[in-house]
């Protein structure tokens, strides 16, 4: 037995040496083992970025598998998705995992973003990491919006009609933008072609570049240390090696997530409660819209706030007013590191913290109202 172990260990060592000789991975391992991750009471938030990455990888893999059978077009989209979930071996599981993972990815990204915001990890010199992260969340939501229409069922058709119609409220470019998104005046088979193109080519391309940049920034700058470490000299700073300790912990989290994903996909293949994606009936542009048209949960706060705004605010149309306010708030959120940069190292901008909590409360309240008032 001992002999066998020695043999296998020799084989692994020889294999490692063979690979190292060609790719110089020893240098990489050495670099990673020198990297350190701060250890403190809020270390748990460091894992949410990795969680988002895990769900993104799942999205890419399951998306490729769905692509093998999905056929875009008004006459084929619904039929192909139906074929995937009813005929293709494990097709139902792939679609279910893709849908669950999409929702969990956006949830993880939101938590990651707010944890970065409230731990002030966005501050100098990590402004570019913050901006790339916020843009990544925006792109993830665009993934959700474009993917929602692809099954071409009743609910997705009418939700997309409402969603793209909102873009039409923008001044000057509204109509043009709406037509570009729809591929015409109305949501038709041409819209599926566009959304499909965006979902599987344009967005993944941009997303991959941005995520590479985001990870590059993190690797170059390391994990942000708590704010008080800069000012309080009495605190004992603790660190753990990035490799293997942090990587192994991250892997453990990924395994737990994989388990959760598998259980959700098997027990709730069509989602649960407000987060659901039953295939239902095929989209019929001439049918009356269903009584409740609602977007995905992560768009609900914007959808609900636009619904609550009166028809006219001063001389501006209500919908346009709402879009302007939300856009200004989004822009302020994006440039938050620059708004906080005037504070000395180790101090926080209390106005920015209040703004952060206002955003959280606004999103939560509007989302809840969206589901209660429908």
């Amino acid at each position: 037995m001992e002999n066998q172990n020695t043999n296998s260990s020799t084989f692994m060592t020889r294999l490692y040496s063979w690979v190292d000789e060609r790719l110089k991975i020893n240098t990489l391992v050495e670099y990673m083992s020198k990297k350190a991750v701060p250890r403190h009471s809020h270390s748990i938030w460091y894992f949410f970025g990795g969680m988002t990455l895990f769900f993104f990888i799942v999205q890419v893999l399951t998306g490729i598998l769905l692509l093998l059978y999905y056929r875009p077009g008004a006459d084929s989209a619904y039929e192909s998705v139906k074929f995937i979930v009813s005929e293709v071996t494990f097709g139902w599981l792939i679609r279910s995992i893709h849908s669950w993972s999409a929702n969990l990815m956006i949830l993880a990204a939101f938590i990651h973003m707010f944890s970065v915001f409230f731990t002030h990890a966005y501050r100098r010199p990590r402004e570019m990491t913050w901006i790339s992260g916020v843009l990544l969340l925006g792109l993830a939501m665009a993934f959700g919006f474009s993917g929602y229409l692809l099954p071409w069922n009743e609910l997705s058709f009418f939700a997309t009609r409402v969603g793209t119609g909102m873009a039409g409220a923008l001044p000057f470019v509204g109509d043009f933008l709406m037509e570009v998104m729809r591929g015409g005046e109305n949501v038709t088979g041409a819209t599926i072609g566009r959304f499909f193109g965006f979902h599987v080519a344009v967005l993944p391309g941009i997303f991959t570049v941005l995520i590479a940049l985001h990870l590059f920034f993190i690797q170059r700058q390391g994990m942000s240390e708590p704010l008080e470490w800069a000012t309080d000299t009495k605190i004992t700073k603790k660190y753990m090696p990035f490799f293997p300790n942090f990587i192994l912990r991250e892997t453990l989290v990924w395994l737990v997530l994989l388990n959760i994903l598998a259980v959700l996909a098997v027990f709730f293949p069509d989602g649960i409660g407000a987060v659901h994606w039953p295939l239902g009936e095929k989209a019929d542009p001439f049918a009356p819209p269903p009584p409740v048209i609602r977007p995905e949960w992560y768009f609900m706060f914007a959808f609900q706030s636009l619904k609550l705004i009166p028809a006219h605010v001063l001389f501006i149309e209500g919908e346009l007013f709402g879009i302007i306010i939300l856009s200004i708030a989004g822009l302020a959120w994006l440039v938050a590191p620059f708004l906080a940069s005037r504070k000395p190292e180790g101090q926080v901008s209390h106005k920015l913290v209040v703004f952060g909590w206002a955003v959280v409360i606004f999103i939560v309240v509007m989302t809840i109202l969206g589901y209660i008032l429908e």
Partner: protein
Amino acid sequence: MKLFYDKIKRFFVPFAATLMICFVYGYAQADNCLECHSGWEDDERAPSALFPTDVHSQAGLGCSDCHGGNPDLEDMDDVRRSKGYRGIPGPKEIPAFCATCHSDPNYMIKHNPALATDQFDKYKTSVHGQQLLGKGDIKVANCVSCHSVHDIASPQMPTSTVNALNIPKTCSKCHSDAAYMAGYGIPTDQFDDYVKSVHGHALLDKKDLGAPACNDCHGNHGATPPGITSISAVCGMCHTLISDEFAKSPHKKAFDEMGYPECEGCHSNHLVLEPQLYWVGITDSSLCVNCHSADDGTIALATADKMHNSLQALYNAYDSAETKTDDADTRGMMVTDQRFTLKEVSQAIIKTRTVIHSFNADEVEKTAAPGIQTADKVYQAAVAKIDEYYFRRYGLGIATLIITLLAVMLYFKIRSIEK
């Protein structure tokens, strides 16, 4: 001043003259019949109150177009003495009264070219017409008995007494009145039977205008009860395939020879109920034993038994497939294809029930066979779905176990590293 008067004259005189012409023309156009009658008829069912809603009024006709006389005259006595005055027709005169226009193609083409002009000719051949015009029996139906009077609506209108949905009620006004119908020697339970029938249920409850009302079997203006020989022809107008099957069957010749009614023999006439499986067979409740017995020297009961078994097998196959599909559905499996295929089995049931009227057991068995096979495929597909349901859960259990095991090992590895 003169210039002023000239101006007044120039504008006022033509204006006054135009006003006068309009007034005189309008007065002359007024229908004096309605003017006077509405003055002293205060009943809401009075002719003058009803007539504005009448299809004839809406077509631009007035009272004098039917009743004659000069509507321009103000005095009623003058009207009665005027040329063409016809007054109120009695029941016996009504058909000819209406036929003045309705049997005149040259007149009707101007008002309603789509309307037939043979109603009076048909009426004369009907039982109603023969009773009224031949025997002078004024109790029987004339035009206004069914179409109403002064508030006549197009049959397409839901308010019309002869709209398809209202016809059973209209006919039943007389035919369900036992006292009124006394002396005619015909039953008065037709309406009660009809509302319980598949036809009545479809027409009155489901508002299915494809279902027959009284007139679809009995005719309308030529209303005549179908005779024994014509029953299958009447039913066959809609149930064409069944009629064809029956015509090929040994029953056709036997029924004709014995003077038995065809469809009515098993299905009744007004009380046509949903056919039941037990109707065909050899049990006491089956219809076949009403005429046939085991020792009647025919293969009738053997055929009935075989047909029953074929149909029973098809029903059983359908029920099993549907139950299994429901089971898979409640487990959250996608069964839309199975539900769609089940409709093919439903079609096979309808087809087999149609072929039963050939009374050929082999033919029934042959027709039922594809339906049974399809139902069996649906059943197997539903079983596969349920198996897949368990496979998913067992698969999940194993996958979860492996992942959990890996996670636990990793946890201990991390602990050992960090020690």
